[in-house]
């Protein structure tokens, strides 16, 4: 372990140190001034963002190849730091309003972000597992943050139990992969496969179990059962963060493992991913149709979006199409993050005390009473539905392009038709806001409004000026 090993993990180390310090400093921050804790958390994330970008993926491998700092990791670290900052921005006023101002919220959030970042850098299955736990445990705690609200506690317990279950699958998968290849490192697994030392049947079984564990994190069907309950029960700002962060981290690991370690298992694993993608899109979108509660609707919608991304992931084994598919998933994660935070920010603004104002019907009349908020929500819904000129459209364009490039025409057709279904439930929110009479209430502090405005502008701006950002995603492709 040398200094350069730690240098490869500079953003993560900095964030963990900062979060630990914040935990202590928070003790001296009086309850009335918890805004400082939020500010310090954002400052820490900004610092981490700076480190990650400055590192620029150039630091190479560390800890004997257990972590690797490459363009892929940098892109995701930057995205995760931004997501963390948005998560704090959305939470500040909400926590005050709901009477749960406690500085630990921000500390736990930072630890979770650190885990997600580590996931983006992990090049060893053990490190992926560590990162998975580091990101999950704070989320379990935060889900119950609205103590003593029962829905929150129920959600946290559900999340924890199912999460532990999925982690067990993941560990068993690691064991089988190790048994098949004598390695837990991605490079080592690939080498074992290339030299023919690996037991392919065992490896495929292990790979399948890894898929289960990660499928749980990204909320792919049939491992999605926890999602609507947890998204509904958790405090709304946390849900926004969880929906983005856990998904980004899950896809980071999924891509690195599948593209780098398992390309030769394409014939065995690609059909499984194909089926996951299909089920996730269909079930997510159809279930979302029936939801009356906006948090549940967005939960199923987040499942559906995981499905669209899996469509591109299916191309992992196709050496020609894989780089573009990885870039497409990265870009879509950005698109999803921006849109998702915006939509949840509006949910946070409309939610009143004690979890009221969470039904779609409560949005009636928002178009008249809060025209800017309603306009922003319309932009987010259009982006989720994939209608131009929004970033969601460009993102889907790249995803389906990757699928066509790899020859998965049928899956792409299911995907676009599923997204037509999604138009119905997204537009129902718009219809309710503008075309139903009602007295929608919304409130939010300047920070929340800033969050809404920034994400709405980004949703449109990234939908029109996409070249530079996509170039960045293209440069972030995976290499061994």
């Amino acid at each position: 372990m040398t200094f350069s090993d730690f240098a490869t993990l500079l953003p993560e180390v900095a964030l963990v140190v900062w979060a630990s310090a914040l935990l202590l400093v928070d003790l001296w921050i009086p309850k009335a001034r918890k805004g400082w804790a939020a500010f310090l958390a954002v400052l820490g994330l900004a610092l981490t963002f700076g480190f990650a970008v400055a590192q620029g993926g150039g630091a190479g491998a560390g800890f004997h190849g257990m972590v690797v700092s490459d363009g892929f990791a940098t892109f995701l670290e930057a995205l995760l730091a931004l997501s963390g900052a948005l998560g704090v921005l959305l939470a500040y006023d909400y926590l005050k309003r709901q009477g749960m101002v406690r500085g630990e919220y921000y500390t736990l959030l930072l630890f979770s972000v650190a885990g997600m970042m580590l996931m983006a850098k992990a090049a060893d299955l053990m490190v992926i597992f560590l990162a998975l736990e580091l990101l999950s445990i704070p989320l379990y705690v935060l889900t119950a943050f609205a103590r003593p609200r029962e829905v929150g506690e129920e959600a946290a317990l559900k999340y924890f139990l199912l999460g532990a279950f999925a982690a067990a699958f993941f560990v068993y998968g690691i064991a089988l992969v190790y048994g098949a290849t004598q390695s837990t490192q991605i490079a080592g697994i690939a080498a074992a496969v290339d030299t023919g030392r690996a037991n392919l049947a065992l490896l495929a079984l292990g790979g399948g179990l890894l898929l289960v564990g990660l499928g749980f994190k990204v909320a792919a069907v049939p491992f999605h059962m926890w999602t609507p309950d947890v998204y509904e029960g958790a405090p709304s700002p946390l849900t926004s963060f969880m929906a983005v962060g856990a998904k980004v981290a899950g896809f980071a690991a999924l891509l690195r493992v599948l593209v780098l370690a398992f390309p030769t298992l394409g014939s065995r694993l690609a059909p499984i991913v194909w089926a996951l993608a299909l089920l996730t899109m269909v079930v997510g979108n159809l279930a979302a149709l029936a939801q009356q509660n906006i948090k549940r609707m967005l939960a199923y919608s987040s499942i559906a979006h995981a499905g669209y991304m899996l469509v591109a992931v299916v191309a992992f084994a196709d050496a020609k199409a894989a780089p573009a598919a990885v870039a497409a998933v990265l870009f879509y994660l950005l698109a999803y993050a921006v849109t998702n935070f915006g939509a949840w920010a509006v949910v946070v603004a409309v939610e009143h005390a004690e979890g009221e104002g969470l039904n779609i019907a409560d949005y009636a009349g928002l178009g008249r009473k809060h025209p800017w908020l309603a306009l922003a929500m319309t932009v987010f819904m259009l982006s989720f539905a994939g209608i131009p000129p929004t970033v969601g459209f460009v993102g889907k364009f790249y995803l389906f392009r990757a699928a066509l490039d790899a020859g998965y025409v049928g899956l792409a057709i299911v995907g676009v038709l599923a997204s037509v279904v999604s138009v119905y439930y997204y537009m129902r929110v718009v219809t309710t806001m503008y075309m139903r009479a009602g007295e929608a209430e919304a409130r939010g502090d300047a920070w929340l409004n800033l969050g809404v405005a920034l994400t709405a502008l980004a949703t449109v701006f990234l939908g029109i000026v996409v070249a530079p950002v996509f170039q960045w995603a293209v440069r972030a492709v995976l290499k061994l």
Partner: protein
Amino acid sequence: MDFLMNPLNLMTFFPLVGVAAILLIPRERKDAIRWVAVITSLVSFFVSLWMLALFHAKNPGFQMVYDRLWLQAGGFEIHYALGVDGLSILLVLLTTLLTPISIFSAWTAIEDRVKEFAIAFLIMEVGMLGVFLALDLFTFFVFWEFSLVPMYFIIGIWGGPRRTYSAIKFMLYTMVGSVLMLLAILWLGLSQGTFYLPDLLAKGVHLPLHLQAWLFLAFALAFAIKVPMWPLHSWLPDAHVEAPTAGSVILAGVLLKMGTYGFLRFNLSLFPEASVKFAVPIAVLAIIGILYGAMVAYAQKDFKKLVAYTSVSHLGFVMLGLFALNPMGIAGGILQMINHGISTGALFLIVGIIYERTHTRDLSAFGGLWKIMPIYGAFSLVVALSSMGLPGLNGFIGEFTILMGAFQSPVLGPAFAISAALGIVLAAVYILVMLQKVFLGPAKEKNLGLPDLNWREITVLAVLTVFIFWIGLHPAPFFNLMMPAVEKMAHGLQAAALAMH
């Protein structure tokens, strides 16, 4: 600034300046908002006249092309590209003409949320012009999908009692077709290495016939829903009946043309062999649409629904003309798109005028209006006869050219022309019955005090009537604009037809 020196960009995006201005006006100052909207769309109209002045009618290619690399990633390029040629120029002019007219026509009809209404209309204009001018498949698709959103709001907010149902139906129907087109665009772009239409046309799309056929069908589904062709038309009566008058004018006048234009611009030019192959089935559907639309229109008791179904019939003529695949048919098809925009737009205005006064569209509630509102009656007569295809008015020129085209067509033939001609007879029936029910016979007592047209309504209808007579009596300038481009396209189609036989 280079960007705005191009008349096409300027015309397309100038309405956004109006949107920005309207955002700054307080919502109580409704007249100020209306004036800004009308003036903004008139500026776009004048810019389109500037485009017309710069246009060289003898040149069959794209003109005033503005082409910039939009994004380049992973081995493919997407351009932002606009351009105009003989196939699109008339539709562009129709759009810039009908937008101020419909905003103007809604002066007193829309009193609620005027600000949002004006913004929706101006944004709509951006989308429509972009569709007709786009030269890159990606650019085209962006505008195509984008134009759905303002129309969704126009129907859904200012529409009739079943407005939300109709708005979402309109949106979903159109989306189903267009997402498959998106995949076809992607597939085409990937296999040909470019999304830029002039490049695709120059190289020609060389694919095996069965692949061409699949791509053709994916494009055709999107456009056939938009046209709408029988049997995909069921969204149209709902959308039209619920939409506010101004929305119906734009919907019938311009949005439906996006479908027929799509066939012209993409199906016929990119897949000539598949076009030859599918010409007969499409022409059959077109003829079913002509006859079915006319018969259903005849059966309507609701004035607006009657006009809505005439669209199904008239657009059937356009499709028949386009798939005659010869210069005569295609030129007639394009002219008929313009005619339909003018005549049906005017018919919807006429329905709207009487609806605003009586709050009913039930044909049996009228009668004898000629005596009460003579100016209204005179305009209605001209417009209705133009829609019916009376010689000397615009509809006749379009329909006659189409029938000639179908008659001489290398793929269709006299049988198609004769069955379509039956549609003209049916049109005479429903139009005359409609005129009789509304204007002749004894006047209803409650209608006796109805005021005749005001200056605003007269202006709007007079502008459209000028074009009805102009195209009817002297269509040559309109044909001259499109002929070189039409002949170039028909040449390619005929070569494909010869190669296949």
